């Protein structure tokens, strides 16, 4: 019983963290039509930033600065926001698929830094002993997991509320206008660029925050936590939930993480130890096929976009 509950808590924490990143991606793609292929990069910037700020001092590496966890999370948001601002300023004024290529490149470079810049990131071994907030007071184990789950859920709820409010505000309506109507985007000129940049930076900040939440739950970060597959997972979550819809984004995160965990667990049960690496590969293939099928069969996702404005107003 306890172990099932513990497993469920684990599952929910991860799913909720991914949901936060998915909300960020939804602000970019769903609300603004920005194509970010570097989700894993921004996620890892947040994770490393918070790790550097909060870990105890380490003579061989930058930091740690042993700051409070809340400061680390704030730092994660700021750091991923700065990186996003630089990327967006360079790529957002170009054709939309150039943003995809640029963010892809950024993620590749961030991965290179994570792997090789030992003095910042700890290289392939990553950064260890990332503090778990209040673990001394609560004690490790199920109780702390539940506590952390509550924290993550509170953040997710706050973010959901904030993004919902944003998307329904005049600001959000402008974003949608920019996305749906090239003419509107053009008539806004430079300001359209500013709106896009704001949405892009805000979205990446959510991803950075998710990365930090991940780091402080797991207790260490390493480059292999942030492979391109993470970007793909977040995308699948958004598409399956239905882009343009924040509730869909959250639902998609839970659904996909459930599919992922259950299929992974099944494979571990069924497949002999020696074949597990291959089985994991097959799992990714199947998820890739699933994504393709959803794109083909239900292009609006399981829930679909809420029609805030009708596309074909005044038909007939």
């Amino acid at each position, binding site marked *: 019983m306890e172990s099932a509950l513990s497993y469920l808590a684990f599952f929910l924490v991860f799913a909720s963290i991914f949901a936060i990143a998915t909300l960020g991606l939804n602000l970019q793609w769903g609300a603004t039509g920005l194509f970010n292929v570097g989700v894993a990069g921004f996620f890892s910037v947040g994770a490393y930033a918070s790790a550097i700020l909060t870990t105890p001092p380490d003579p061989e590496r930058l930091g740690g600065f042993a700051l409070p966890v809340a400061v680390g999370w704030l730092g994660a948001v700021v750091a991923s926001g700065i990186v996003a601002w630089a990327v967006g300023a360079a790529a957002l004024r170009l054709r939309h698929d150039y943003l995809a290529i640029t963010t892809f*490149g950024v993620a590749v470079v961030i991965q290179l830094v994570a792997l090789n810049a030992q003095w910042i990131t700890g290289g392939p071994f990553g950064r260890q002993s990332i503090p778990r907030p209040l673990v001394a007071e609560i004690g490790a184990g199920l109780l702390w997991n539940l506590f952390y789950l509550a924290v993550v859920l509170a953040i997710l709820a706050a973010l959901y509320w904030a993004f919902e409010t944003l998307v329904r505000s005049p600001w959000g309506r402008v974003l949608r206008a920019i996305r749906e109507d090239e003419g509107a985007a053009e008539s806004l000129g430079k300001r359209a660029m500013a709106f896009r940049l704001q949405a892009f930076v805000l979205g990446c900040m959510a991803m950075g925050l998710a990365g930090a939440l991940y780091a402080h739950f797991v207790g260490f970060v390493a480059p292999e936590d942030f492979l391109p597959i993470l970007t793909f997972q977040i995308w699948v979550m958004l598409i399956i939930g239905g882009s343009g819809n924040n509730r869909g984004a959250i639902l998609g995160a839970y659904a996909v993480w459930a599919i992922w965990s259950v299929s992974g667990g099944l494979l571990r049960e069924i497949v002999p130890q020696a074949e597990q690496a291959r089985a994991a*590969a097959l799992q990714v293939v199947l998820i890739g096929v699933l994504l393709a099928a959803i*794109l083909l069969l239900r292009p609006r996702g399981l829930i679909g976009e809420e029609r805030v404005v009708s596309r074909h107003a005044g038909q007939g």
Partner: protein
Amino acid sequence: MLQLVADGLIVGSVVSLGAVGLTLTYSLLRFANFGHGELLTWGAYLTLAFLGLLLAGAEMAPIGPFSFGWPLLAALMLALPATAAIALAVDWALFRRLARHGNAITLVIASFGAALALRNLVQFIWGTLPEYYTREIQIAIRLVPRDVLGGLRITPDQLLVLALTAAVVVLLHLFLSYSTLGRAMRATAMNPALARLAGADVAKVARATWVIGAALACIAGVFAGLTGQIRPMMGFDLLLPLFAAAILGGIGNVWGAVIGGLIVGLAESFTVPLLGAEYRAAGSFAVLIAILLIRPTGLFGARA
């Protein structure tokens, strides 16, 4: 110095061939295909598989100074159509259907998913350990003594890769310039509706573009395997250089992609003494950012 240039050009040849295929499909099908790198990987592995079948356990007798023998070329000839078949299958199953009612960006996501599936399928079938076409050790020839600009050593395989890349590019140029299909490809990339009015069957032209792009990717993959390792990630690792080269040369511009590929290869090569070998890919990224900031239509691109 000379050595860095030579190394850059060898990597650049692989990037050039891959980027030519990418730029052709990009301009004709109008979306950034994140799966193109996987065609290189599949080309390399399919050649490896056919080589295994052809040799059936026997040793491959090398041709002259090279590390490989005729069976490798035969395997490549078999892998070319097989790689093209994969590209056509993905197009048929995914891209063509999505293009009918989706926008370009849905295609980009789909290509991202397809890439992941293709890459993991390689891992599933062949595992993650690096493979080689031959274990033959090649002795590098010293072309330039050490006291001239740091000297230059190069293996016969590497020289061959350079020469064959040049030959392939020239053949492709002749094809695009003088054959009806090649001209139809250029015309369709420029203006698909007008191409139909001029009598081109655009669906057929698109299929031809996939076949040629995949064949070039297959050759590039084999060259990469011949001068390095065959790994499941080899194509993915080349994706950023490919995009950088294609954008540098201007989307749709074949010669641009070739020059772009060589420049990207050199940039990666010169990144090594500056930042260390592990940061090679950062060279591609620097080229990409520079061109996007300075001249997003590419060095030779006419269209925005």
